[in-house]
């Protein structure tokens, strides 16, 4: 920062100028090849230099005219390709397609309810048969959160905090709407997580809904209250406990070829809330990870810390 305090010639400067319309990316690319010349204050510029300048200008304008055409041609080719692929696809819901004749699919649809106990077959597939994939997804999200923290986490700045409060406070419409909507949003998120094995939903979507609710709270009211509950320390504890409990609950199944242990988590009666074996705790773990990570993203983006 100290070396380049005015952000001159930086990427954002270029981006801003480009957005305002008085800077051309093609010119920037040309400018890197040929560094910008000083202003022509002297009239006695030699002829070769003058000729070079004119050639460059002509090249730039040539590319300027070429880019839209190439973009249109590329987009048209892509659309054509996709339409051809769509026309080759089998009709929706036909009986002799691989999605209906595959042995795996028959097993999932035919025996899914008995083996997993989940009324929602999708939840049975992604959290019982294919639980390892979902564990990988949760870790992808966790890794993304770590990468964002590494990039954007910064030291607490007093001036920035005051600015934040000034912007976020005293919006009557936002506050009243949030007061009415927040309990419903959070409750719906919890419902979606807990009933993931009974109906549509699951850990990821429910966690995203709760994360959205937390973001709304943080926008509408003083962010300090939420910051006391979810700070860096509690974020670490929640996410690590959720991921670890997921791994520990499913590790036997991972190592023994998807054979479940006969534990207290039985398949139970389909349709009851405590049924479907491990799906309910796994959904809760995924939901906690997703909710905390979404709120963490928002908090890091706005304040530079959780």
């Amino acid at each position, binding site marked *: 920062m100290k070396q380049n305090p*005015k952000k001159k010639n930086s990427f954002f400067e270029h981006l801003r100028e480009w957005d305002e319309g008085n800077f051309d990316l093609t010119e920037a690319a040309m400018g890197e090849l040929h560094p910008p010349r000083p202003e022509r204050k002297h009239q006695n510029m030699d002829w070769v230099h003058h000729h070079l300048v004119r050639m460059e200008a002509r090249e730039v304008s040539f590319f300027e005219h070429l880019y839209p055409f190439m973009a249109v041609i590329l987009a048209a080719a892509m659309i054509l390709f996709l339409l051809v692929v769509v026309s080759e696809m089998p009709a929706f819901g036909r009986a002799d397609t691989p999605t209906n004749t595959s042995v795996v699919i028959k097993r999932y649809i035919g025996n899914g309810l008995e083996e997993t106990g989940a009324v929602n077959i999708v939840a049975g597939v992604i959290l019982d048969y294919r639980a390892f994939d979902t564990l990988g997804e949760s870790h992808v999200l966790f890794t993304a959160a770590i990468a964002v923290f590494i990039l954007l986490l910064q030291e607490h700045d007093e001036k920035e905090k005051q600015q934040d409060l000034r912007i976020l406070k005293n919006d009557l419409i936002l506050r009243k709407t949030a007061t009415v909507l927040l309990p419903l949003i959070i409750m719906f998120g919890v419902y979606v997580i807990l009933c993931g094995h009974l109906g549509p939903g699951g850990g990821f979507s429910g966690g*995203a809904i709760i994360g959205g609710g937390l973001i709304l709270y943080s926008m509408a009211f003083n962010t300090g209250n939420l910051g006391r509950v979810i700070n860096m320390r509690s974020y670490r504890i929640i996410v690590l406990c959720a991921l670890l409990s997921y791994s520990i609950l499913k590790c036997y199944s991972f190592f023994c070829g998807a054979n479940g242990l006969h534990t207290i988590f039985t398949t139970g009666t389909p349709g009851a809330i405590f049924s479907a074996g491990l799906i309910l705790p796994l959904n809760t773990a995924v939901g906690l990870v997703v909710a905390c990570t979404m709120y963490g993203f928002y908090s890091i983006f706005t304040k530079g810390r959780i």
Partner: protein
Amino acid sequence: MNIIELVLLGLLIICGIATCVSRNLMVSLIIFMAYSVVMSIIWGFLEAPDLAITEAAVGAGISSILLFITLKKIHDMRKEDGHEAESEEKEQLL
């Protein structure tokens, strides 16, 4: 395929094109949110309620919020740059 689905699919195409074409980034983001909402309704019509809920929560909710915050940060950066340029001009005048 009834008339509501056709209208929704047409709206999807219009939203997709308008997102690319619109000059103002803020308008573009709002149209992108509308795109996600329409898409989630279409998932509902295609009998994929899991996807519908996820699309509504993630596509229309979280990702739009993150994009809005990014836009706000860019505007803040522009403002800071503008102030610096003004002060620089004043210094030069003085």
